[in-house]
């Protein structure tokens, strides 16, 4: 547990100076509140002895000072601590992304998208409690509690012992009970939340098919089950929370009664000035303000740590594909790209997706790659872009193993119009700019034109700024595919890799499109993966893959 905490705090990277300031402010705010009630009690007790008014001046000033400064200090404390926590969240979120980014796609495959979403948004948000509830309040309580007990000890040691015992029980034992009772549920809660989000994301995305196949009831029933589990955990949590509240209140009440009893007895025996009886009682009563938030904090800490664990689980994963410690300079342009007797496998339990495959892409050459679906064609593109490393054999650029280059330089060599390419839920322009962020409108339009999408975009009211919908769902299948192509054309890399670029197009559009693309890419190396005749006739050679093996010797066309 402390290990998780420490590593989360390291991930959050909070500046020590600010933390100290925030804790100081927190302690002052609570301290001033205690001081206000205590001095007010003293003022009244002292006044009851009918002294000259002037002798009360100092006390009156103190009461006014604490009354005025407490809300101000409290306000500052909250601002500073929340700002600190939120900044830490931003940092955790950015680091979380930085760490998972190299894991994609292969090592994120076991995670559901909605679950990742919960980890990134919900779980990271829960980490806000790490500082605001996990770290600051115990330190504040410790500081204020010590001072209160110290002050009381100076006046009446026996009462101080009771107060100290009460504060320790209220600030340590009760939170420990809450922590123990809530920990398991907290862990479940974070997981169930992830599950619920994952279910919802999937059902919302797949709703048309679920509805078409009449599965509304069943789907709702499934959500209902997860939801009921979440509700059950919530009710349990409420019981624990209520119990902790009850214990805190009881401990505070007992302590106040105990201190009061000792004070009355001491006064009776002459050991305590009568003025101090009420003062001490009020000090004891108000000094619980510091420990009051701790049981809830301990309870939530269980959830927080569970969330933190879910975040760390991902940030701890080491990418299987890594940059070398001493990378080669960027590969020459143009360069020959080869697969040399490559065997590749997606997982230890999987059959190899490619077995001893050789492929050679000389500069300017156009190679077609065909073969039944599932043959391993897309896997070839994954190898080229280093989403997957070969189990045996090697992939080279300019005669050197791609693993000796920086990944970024390898990917700069290729412009991929992938079969699984993602269209982002923004505008046409934003999607294109991904390939070249500085592209002018003219360049964007030229690329769209070559992908045979220019006319359509021009016909749209918002043109390039038309939103394409989540995952490009507001485009027709063919439009989406052409947008992906336009993006690859814009990337301007020496090797163009096209994975089934015309699968969703009608034959006339497809053949015009392939002509345009191949004309535009006259000086580039092209790898065209396709099942369709369009474009194949313009290839220099065609390689056939079947069940992960090259079956036909390359035929020059």
């Amino acid at each position, binding site marked *: 547990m402390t290990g998780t905490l420490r590593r989360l705090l390291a991930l959050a990277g909070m500046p020590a100076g600010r933390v100290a300031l925030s804790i100081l402010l927190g302690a002052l705010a609570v301290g001033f509140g205690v001081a206000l009630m205590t001095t007010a009690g003293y003022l009244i007790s002292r006044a009851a002895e009918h002294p000259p008014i002037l002798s009360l001046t100092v006390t009156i000033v103190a009461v006014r000072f604490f009354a005025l400064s407490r809300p101000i200090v409290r306000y500052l404390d*909250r601002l500073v601590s*929340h700002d600190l926590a939120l900044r830490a969240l931003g940092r955790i979120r950015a680091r979380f992304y930085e760490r998972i980014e190299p894991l994609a*796609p292969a090592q994120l495959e076991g995670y559901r998208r909605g679950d990742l*979403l919960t980890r990134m948004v919900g779980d990271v948000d829960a980490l806000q409690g790490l500082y605001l509830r996990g770290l600051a309040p115990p330190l504040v309580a410790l500081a204020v509690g010590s001072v209160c007990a110290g002050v009381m000890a100076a006046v009446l040691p026996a009462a101080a012992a009771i107060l100290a015992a009460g504060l320790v029980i209220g600030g340590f034992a009760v939170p420990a009970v809450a922590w123990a009772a809530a920990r398991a549920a907290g862990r479940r809660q974070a997981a169930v939340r992830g599950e*619920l989000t994952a279910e919802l994301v999937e059902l919302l995305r797949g709703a048309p098919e679920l509805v078409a196949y009449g599965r509304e009831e069943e789907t709702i029933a499934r959500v209902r089950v997860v*939801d009921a589990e979440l*509700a059950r955990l919530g009710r349990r949590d409420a019981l624990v929370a209520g119990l902790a509240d009850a214990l805190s209140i009881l401990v505070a009440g*007992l302590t106040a009664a105990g201190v009061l009893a000792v004070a009355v007895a001491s006064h009776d025996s002459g050991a305590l000035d009568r003025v101090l009886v009420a003062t001490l009682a009020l000090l004891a009563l108000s000094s619980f303000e510091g420990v009051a938030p701790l049981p809830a904090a301990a309870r939530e800490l269980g959830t927080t740590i569970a969330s933190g664990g879910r975040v760390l689980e991902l940030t701890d994963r080491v990418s299987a594909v890594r940059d070398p410690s001493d990378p080669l300079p960027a590969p020459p342009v143009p360069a020959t790209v080869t697969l040399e007797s490559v065997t590749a496998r997606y997982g230890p339990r999987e059959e190899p997706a490619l077995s001893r495959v050789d492929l050679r892409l000389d500069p300017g050459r156009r190679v077609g790659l065909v073969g039944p679906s599932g043959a391993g064609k897309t896997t070839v593109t994954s190898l080229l872009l280093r989403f997957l490393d070969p189990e045996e054999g090697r992939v080279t650029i300019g005669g050197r193993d791609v693993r000796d280059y920086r990944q970024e330089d390898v990917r700069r060599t290729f412009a991929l119009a992938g*079969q699984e390419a993602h269209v982002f839920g923004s505008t046409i322009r934003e999607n294109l700019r991904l390939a070249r962020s500085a592209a002018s409108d003219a360049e964007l339009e030229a690329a769209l034109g070559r992908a045979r999408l220019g006319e359509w975009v021009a016909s749209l009211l918002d043109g390039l700024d038309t939103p394409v919908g989540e995952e490009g769902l507001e485009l027709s299948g063919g439009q989406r595919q052409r947008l992906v192509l336009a993006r690859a054309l814009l990337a301007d890399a020496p090797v163009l890799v096209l994975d089934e670029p015309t699968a969703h197009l009608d034959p006339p559009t497809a053949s015009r499109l392939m002509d345009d693309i191949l004309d535009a890419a006259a000086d580039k190396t092209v790898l065209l993966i396709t099942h369709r005749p369009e474009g194949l006739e313009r290839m220099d050679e065609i390689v056939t893959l079947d069940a992960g093996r090259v079956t036909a010797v390359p035929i020059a066309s």
Partner: protein
Amino acid sequence: MRLIDPRLLRRARAVRVLLAADVALGVLAALLVLAQAVLIARVAARAFGGAPLPEVTLPLVLLVAAAAGRGAAAWGFEAVGRRAATSVLSGLRLELVERRLRDRPAALDGAESGEVATAAVAGVDALETTFARYLPQVVLAAVVPLAVIVLVASIDLLSAGLMLLTLPLVPVFMWLVGRYTEGQTRKRWQALSLLSTHFLDVVRGLPTLRAFNRGEAQAERIAEVSDRYRRATMGTLRVAFLSGAVLELAATLGIALVAVTVGVRLVNGGIGFEAALTVLVLAPELYLPLRNLAAQFHARADGLAVAERLLDLIDTEPGAAPARGTPPSPGDVPVRLEGVSFAYPARPGEVLDSVDLELAPGETVALVGPSGGGKSTIASLLLRLAEPTEGRVAVGNADLADCDPAAWRAQIAWVPQQPTLFRGTVADNIRLGDAGAGDERVRAAAELAGADAFVLELPEAYETVVGDGGRPLSSGERRRIALARAFLRAAPLVILDEPTADLDAASAEAVGEAVSRLGEGRTVLLIAHRPELALRADRVVTLDGGRIVDLPTVEAA
């Protein structure tokens, strides 16, 4: 300012008994606090007057009893309040899911799944505070101060007057500040939605981002979106904290005011010590429920922003009372599009323009045409995932709009252009077509779709988990599983949207043959761009720019 959305209040009615019990417990706890104050003052005052310990035993014991009672009441308050909240919120969440599935499966309103899922999970959690704490606190804030004032007045009228002097300031400040918070919170919620939507999109598109070397640049975007969320949050917090500080100032000033005036009156003998002390101990209690309310206020504003979004999502276009008519079978009567026009709400301009199309019983019609022509849109209309803006879809003599959508869809098997695999086994995914089908029939359907061979190669064959977070499949493999779904469903109307899009020639041929066999005795709408597939149809209809351009005369072999 609205305290709470009336639509939400309506839904709270179901748990009004629990809420009433909750409030009663809260009031009980508050009254016991007052008793505690009176008892502490009594003991201290007696001791001040020289009473020994035995004389104050009774009030001390009562003090402990009051603390115990208060603890028990607090326990109940928390448990009952959260139970009430949980049941309302589960209801809301399920209502949202049902609405999305039943009435708006196609999400034409541009609501993104990341956003909706976050609203339903994180958002609903935020609402819990509103229900469990804020709502009961509203009642407490109205009841408890009244009790305090009455009690103080019965002890010392002048002090009650002093307190009343500061009291009206409190709601005024709250009102002012609360008004300001609403816009801010909405902004904050929008920032959180943006963060969710953006992150889900980024996670889905990570491979694409990496292919374009934009993975790292996204870290900046995430940091930026996070920072916007932080600023929006701090915006609401600053105001919320200010309102809290203002209330706290009113409270501490009230204490100081009472302490100082009572002190001076004590010196002059204008009030007794016990009365003075009781009034002082009671002074903070006057403002406490209000301060708690202020603390919940910000949570309430959060909850309201979420609730509004949720309720908007639920209440969009109160789905026209679902028609209950039984649709005739498309196996017996023709299905006709009669002068159908359609425009997507998000996009100006018509996608379909007075389309007339008849599917006679048992006929296979191929729908061809350039990409973006509106073919998939026709499929959506036939499935009633969208409704025509003009014209109607008729089955025999019945208008489809008058028929029960579920009963209608039960007669259709559909493979969309981009099929979704749901998380579950391959067999379950195929069984989407017919939940009751045995293993035999599932395998037969898979064989027909050309899926059996590769499924058997998977690590756990038909029991392999695929879909979100499961074993990834190549796109041709996914399509064949989706086809198996349709083949399993013994439906009289079959709609296949580019069923061979990413299949190799041999698989496409096999699927074509299967479609021909399937078409015997069924009505089939075959959206196809490959001539060899279209030629299997009885009739080919060309759709271009939203209009039927060929008269349906092309007879095929």
